[in-house]
């Protein structure tokens, strides 16, 4: 699997993402600068987390309009897989590759902690190595992760099985107590209509081996490698 990681001014999870991909795929991912108008050949394009452009105007707004994003959109239309993590998810909603918006956390605070997530389906390349019904533990670190969309879009996402991950209790209940940021439907991650674009607020790249405190992020990259190789 060939992967490319896009770097923007203010990205800060790019290195973790590069290391995770290299460790798991055995191949160094390409690094792409935000001013590039072309992407190298890649089966997977990753938009990493961070605080691009200081979250000015809206989180991800500036990065979503940078030159490289036209190439990312085109690549997505051509069938490549795209993963947006945290700020990357915000960029994907700002470009319109995913519906909805990530708003200020309902409690107004920046939240940095481990959360539990349900894997809503495991028949996609992103989640094939996970079991549904078994919550995973992944960290979040964001100020603007409150997923909002209108009622119609929410119903469509639910109806089409496009919710990838939900915030749940350690026992798997998607209730209000488990919702860290006010997201509608406890949504932590969603797919595009062709299931090839995934945006998620939690950071799987931060937990890829026990030495880092856990390895629940690892199956996401392993699944992609298996499916896209």
């Amino acid at each position, binding site marked *: 699997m060939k992967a490319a990681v896009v770097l923007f001014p203010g990205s800060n999870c790019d290195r973790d993402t590069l290391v995770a991909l290299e460790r798991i795929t055995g191949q160094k991912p390409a690094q792409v600068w935000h001013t590039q108008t072309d992407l190298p050949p890649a089966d997977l394009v990753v938009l990493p987390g961070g605080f691009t452009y200081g979250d000015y105007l809206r989180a991800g*707004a500036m990065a979503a*309009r940078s030159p490289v994003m036209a190439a990312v959109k085109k690549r997505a239309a051509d069938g490549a897989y795209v993963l947006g993590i945290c700020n990357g998810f915000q960029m994907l*909603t*700002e470009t319109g590759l995913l519906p909805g918006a990530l*708003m200020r956390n309902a409690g*107004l605070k920046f939240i940095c902690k481990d959360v539990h997530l349900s894997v809503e389906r495991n028949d996609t390349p992103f989640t094939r190595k996970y079991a549904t019904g078994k919550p995973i533990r992944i960290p979040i670190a964001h100020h603007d992760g*409150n997923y*909002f969309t209108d009622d119609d879009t929410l119903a469509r996402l639910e109806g089409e099985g496009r919710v990838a991950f939900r915030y749940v209790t350690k026992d798997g209940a998607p209730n209000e107590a488990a919702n860290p940021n*006010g997201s509608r439907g406890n949504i932590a991650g969603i797919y595009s209509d062709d299931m090839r674009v995934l945006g998620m607020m939690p950071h799987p790249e931060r937990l890829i081996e026990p030495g880092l405190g856990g390895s629940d992020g690892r199956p996401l990259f392993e699944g992609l490698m298996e499916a896209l190789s």
Partner: protein
Amino acid sequence: MKARVHITLKNGVLDPQGKAIEKTLGNLGFAGIGDVRQGKVIELNISETDPAKAEAQVKQMCEQLLANTVIENYSIELDAA
């Protein structure tokens, strides 16, 4: 010509910052305050002198960058002075 863009959250979109402001206004003793909504104002100078054309340009800026129309409304004010 000066343009001023007002950006506000759409009705039905939760505004936790507005809520926090409302609560603090109450704490300060301002009674009878409700429905506080926070927004943004963006000012810019535009060399276009035709108001209709200027407004059309600013509208495009709003659609493409200044507002996120999934969650925000915008209104444009032009000031020829």
